C-alpha cells in the first residue's frame, strides 16, 4: 500500500521504511523555530533541563516578530532575552529588527525551509511551509526546547484528508477565499489532528503566495498540517532561494486517506468569516450592510507581495471612506522594498492608507491597529476570536486582500465588484 506525501516525509525523517497513521515516531527536525513570544519560555526550559548548546546552530531559527520592534518594556525584555540567547549560541538564523519580518513569510523567502523538510515551530501558523511540500506543524515552547536540545521530536503520524478543488476561480477569488470556504464547510475542528492535502488544477495558475495562505490556515480547521504536492511552481520559487538541498515528495496513487472532500471552485465567491470563528463564512453577496471602522492588510496569511498588488489594483485612483482606517503591513523587509519599488506605497498613501513596518502587530491584538470597544475591522489575518485584535467587544471579519481593500473604500463590507 502506498503512502501520502506526509507519511513519506515523516518516515524518511524517522529512519523508517514506512509509517502509518496513528504510529508514534521520533523524527529528525530540519528546522526548529521560535519567536519573541514563545522562544523565551523555550529558552527557560532549555536551561532548566541543563541545555548547554543547541543541536545545530543553523537549524534553530529565532525571529522577533510578534511584539517587535519592542512594543513596550515587557516586550523589550522578551526580545532581549531571545537576542542574548541567539548571540550566546551563535544562532545563524537570528534576525534583528531591520532584517526581521513575519517568520512564516521570512523563512520561505530566505530559503531556510525547503521542500521535503520536517519543520516544527513554536507558533501555530508554522503549518504555512506545507505550501512548499514540507511537513510543518506548530508546537509549544516545551516541544521547541526539546527539539533545540535533541534535534528531534515525537509525532503521531496523522491521517490525511484530501481536498480536491475542481474548476477555475471567479474574478477576485484567491487562496484565502478557497481556504475560508473550506473551513466554513468542515468547521474549526473538521480536520482535528489530521493533515490537509490540497490538490487541484487551479493550483497550476495560482501563485505560491496563495498556497502559503491556504497551508497557513490549516490550523484554523484544527489541522496538524496543510500540504501541497511540489511542482514546477514550487521549483521556480525554491530554486533561487534554497540554502540546502531539497527533495520533492509526492503521494502515491494508492495512498490511503481518511477521507476526500471535493470542492467546486466555480461556485466560490470572495468570502468573509464573521465573528467569532473562521468557519463562520459567507459569500460577499450575502454579507448585508456591515459598517467597518478599519481594514488591515498584512500578516503571515496575507502579507505577501501578491496580496499587496491585489489591494493596490483596487485602491488605485480611489480613496478610503471618510473616517475609515486602512493599515497595510508588508510581511518582510524584501516585500516592503518590492512594494515600494513597484509604486504600491504611493497608491496606498494616496488612498489614505498607512504603511507599517513588518510585524505580526495587530493580528493578535499586539499593537499597530488595536480595536476599541464596539469597533469592527476587516482583516486579511487568520483568526477572528473574541478580543483577537483588541477589546473583547470588538469584532474581526476575515477576508482576502481584495475584499479588505474594497471594504476600505466602501466603509462597509464590500467586494471589488460592489464598488
Amino acid at each position, binding site marked *: 500500500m502506498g503512502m501520502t506525501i506526509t507519511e513519506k516525509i515523516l518516515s524518511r525523517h524517522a529512519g523508517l521504511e514506512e509509517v502509518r497513521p496513528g504510529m508514534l515516531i521520533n523524527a529528525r527536525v530540519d528546522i526548529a523555530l521560535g519567536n519573541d513570544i514563545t522562544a523565551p519560555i523555550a529558552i527557560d526550559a532549555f536551561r532548566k533541563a541543563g541545555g548547554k548548546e543547541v543541536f545545530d546552530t543553523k537549524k534553530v531559527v529565532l525571529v522577533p516578530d510578534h511584539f517587535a520592534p519592542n512594543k513596550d518594556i515587557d516586550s523589550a525584555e522578551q526580545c532581549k532575552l531571545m537576542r542574548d540567547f541567539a548571540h550566546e549560541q551563535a544562532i545563524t538564523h537570528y534576525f534583528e529588527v531591520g532584517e526581521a519580518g513575519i517568520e512564516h513569510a521570512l523563512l520561505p523567502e530566505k530559503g531556510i525551509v525547503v521542500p521535503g523538510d520536517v519543520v516544527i515551530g513554536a507558533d501555530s501558523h508554522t503549518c504555512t511551509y506545507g505550501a512548499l511540500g514540507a511537513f510543518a506543524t506548530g*508546537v509549544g515552547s516545551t516541544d521547541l526546547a526539546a527539539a533545540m536540545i535533541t534535534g528531534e521530536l515525537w509525532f503521531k503520524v496523522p491521517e490525511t484528508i484530501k481536498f480536491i478543488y475542481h474548476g477555475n476561480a471567479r474574478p477576485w477569488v484567491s487562496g484565502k477565499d478557497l481556504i475560508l470556504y473550506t473551513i466554513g464547510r468542515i468547521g474549526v*475542528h473538521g480536520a482535528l489532528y489530521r493533515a490537509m492535502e490540497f490538490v487541484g488544477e487551479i493550483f497550476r495558475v495560482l501563485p505560491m503566495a496563495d498556497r502559503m495562505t491556504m497551508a497557513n490556515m490549516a490550523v484554523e480547521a484544527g489541522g496538524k498540517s496543510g500540504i501541497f504536492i511540489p511542482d514546477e511552481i514550487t521549483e521556480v520559487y525554491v530554486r533561487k532561494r534554497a540554502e540546502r538541498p531539497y527533495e520533492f515528495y509526492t503521494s502515491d496513487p494508492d495512498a490511503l486517506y481518511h477521507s476526500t472532500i471535493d470542492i467546486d471552485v466555480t461556485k466560490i465567491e470572495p468570502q468573509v468569516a464573521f465573528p467569532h*470563528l473562521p468557519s463562520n463564512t459567507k459569500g460577499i453577496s450575502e454579507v448585508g450592510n456591515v459598517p467597518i471602522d478599519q481594514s488591515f492588510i498584512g500578516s503571515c496569511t496575507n502579507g505577501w507581495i501578491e496580496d499587496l498588488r491585489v489591494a493596490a489594483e483596487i485602491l488605485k485612483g480611489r480613496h478610503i471612506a471618510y473616517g475609515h482606517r486602512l493599515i497595510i503591513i508588508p510581511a518582510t523587509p524584501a516585500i516592503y522594498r518590492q512594494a515600494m519599488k513597484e509604486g504600491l506605497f504611493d497608491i496606498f498613501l494616496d488612498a489614505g492608507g498607512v504603511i507599517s513596518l513588518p510585524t505580526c502587530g495587530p493580528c493578535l491584538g499586539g499593537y499597530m491597529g488595536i480595536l476599541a470597544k464596539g469597533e469592527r475591522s476587516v482583516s486579511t489575518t487568520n483568526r477572528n476570536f473574541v478580543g483577537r485584535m483588541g477589546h473583547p467587544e470588538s469584532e474581526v471579519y476575515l477576508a482576502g486582500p481584495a475584499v479588505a481593500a474594497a471594504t476600505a473604500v466602501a466603509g462597509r463590507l464590500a467586494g471589488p465588484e460592489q464598488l
Partner: protein
Amino acid sequence: MKFTGKIWKFGDNIDTDAIIPARYLNIRDPQGLAAHCMEDADPDFMKKMKKGDIIVGGENFGCGSSREHAPIAIKAAGIACVVARSFARIFYRNSFNMGLPIFESRTLWGEVTDGSEIEVDADTGLIRIPGVSADPVRIQPVPPFMQELIADGGLMNHIAKGRAK
C-alpha cells in the same frame, strides 16, 4: 491521580485568546499569566474560582495559537484539571509536556452544569458526579506514551531520562 472539585463549564472552541489574551503575552511569569486566566471568556473567572476547581470544556478546547502560556495560566491559577469533549492538538501536546492534567470525555459535558462537583479518577478512568448520576462517566484512555510523559514529569524530564540511559 484523583481530583475532586467544583466545575466551571465552558462551551465549544474555547480558544487560547480567550484562555490568555495576547495582550498579556509580554508576561511569562506563571502567576502573572494566571491573573488573566480565561479573562475573555469570563472576565470574573479569577475572582470566582478557587484552587482545586475543574474546567469542563466542549469540543476543540484550546484551539488557536500554540502559546504554552494558556496551559501555564490554567495550571498556575490552581485549576486541578481540564476535562473536555475534545482538545485542539497543540494545546493537548502542551498540557502533557508541561504537566497540566487533561482528560477527554465525550459525555461529561452533557451531564453536568456549572457549579457541579465531580470526582475525576485518572487511575480507573472514571468520573463520578455525586448527587446527579449513579453511573460514572468514562474518560477516553490516555495513550501509553502520554502516560509515560506524565509519569516522567513532563517532556523535558522524559528526555533527560532518555539521554541518561
